């Protein structure tokens, strides 16, 4: 499962929309070993293409070195698909080189509603995971940090229609995703509505 703040979720979507029709790409770094996405790092797409992305090699070097210096790792690696569904392509899978990362895909094919999904890609196998968008601010010093202890109340409300979304992380290799099944959070440009967020938590928008 990917747990991500509303602010970071929206930054990814905004970046994807800004770069459309080119694919957008970037990283969210977090403290090593925690799996917590905290620091948003949009990257240049050196290919500047509507169908392909690649981090610029020197920018990647600087960002990876900086993460190493800060004892961080790439918790989220995101990119957008501009004309197809947000599901890892064969190209995405073949180049996935961070087995611990959450691979987030955003599709900007619909100008009204961006689609946001997350996957693990390990040894060539794709497993979709639930996306939990929470209202707390970025960073461990955020005043809302105590909210993290609250249990998730939205899990039962989400239709669990795919075996691959099970918490046990059962691998589900697919050549193509089943059509029309979208169990995960959709960022439909509705700022007041944090899909999947803990209903009882205070909704604070840090931006």
């Amino acid at each position, binding site marked *: 499962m990917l747990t991500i703040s509303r602010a970071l979720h929206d930054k990814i979507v905004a970046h994807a929309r800004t770069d459309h029709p080119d694919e957008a790409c970037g990283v969210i770094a977090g403290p090593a070993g925690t799996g917590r996405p905290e620091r948003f790092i949009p990257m240049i797409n050196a*290919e500047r293409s*509507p169908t392909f992305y690649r981090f610029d090699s020197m920018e990647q070097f600087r960002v990876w070195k900086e993460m190493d210096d800060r004892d961080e790792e790439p918790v989220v690696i995101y*990119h957008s698909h501009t004309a197809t569904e947000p599901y890892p*392509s064969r190209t995405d899978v073949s180049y996935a*080189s961070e087995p611990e990362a959450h691979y987030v895909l955003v599709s900007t094919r619909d100008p009204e509603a961006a689609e946001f999904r997350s996957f693990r890609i390990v040894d060539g196998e794709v497993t979709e995971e639930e996306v939990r968008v929470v209202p707390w601010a970025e960073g461990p010093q955020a005043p809302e940090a105590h909210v993290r202890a609250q249990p998730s109340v939205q899990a039962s409300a989400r239709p669990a229609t795919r075996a691959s979304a099970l918490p046990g992380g059962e691998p589900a290799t697919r050549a193509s995703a089943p059509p029309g099944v979208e169990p995960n959070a959709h960022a439909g440009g509705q700022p007041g509505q944090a899909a999947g967020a803990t209903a009882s938590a205070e909704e604070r928008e840090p931006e």
Partner: protein
Amino acid sequence: MPIEVRIPTILRNYTGGSKSVEGKGATLGDLLTDLDKRHPGLSERIADGPSLRRFVNVYLNDEDVRFLGGLETPVHEGDTITVLPAVAGGQTRKPVAGGQPG
């Protein structure tokens, strides 16, 4: 002082889990050959025969070796080589020259 080679997560199965190994050689190619003696299979993930693999970035200190000399890049004691698999992907297998209609 040997040459330090920093290994990305995805290649650490060749180095017994180590994130950094050491080697020697006059050029990057020689260095990879040297590393292969102790870490069989590692160099093949970085170079394909006489060329570096396209989606693996290799840096000599702070520079991408593509702009230096590729596998012919001279290396010296005290240098640091960093290997980083390129982060890439997309909706098609390869970049489309000239772009497609939006």
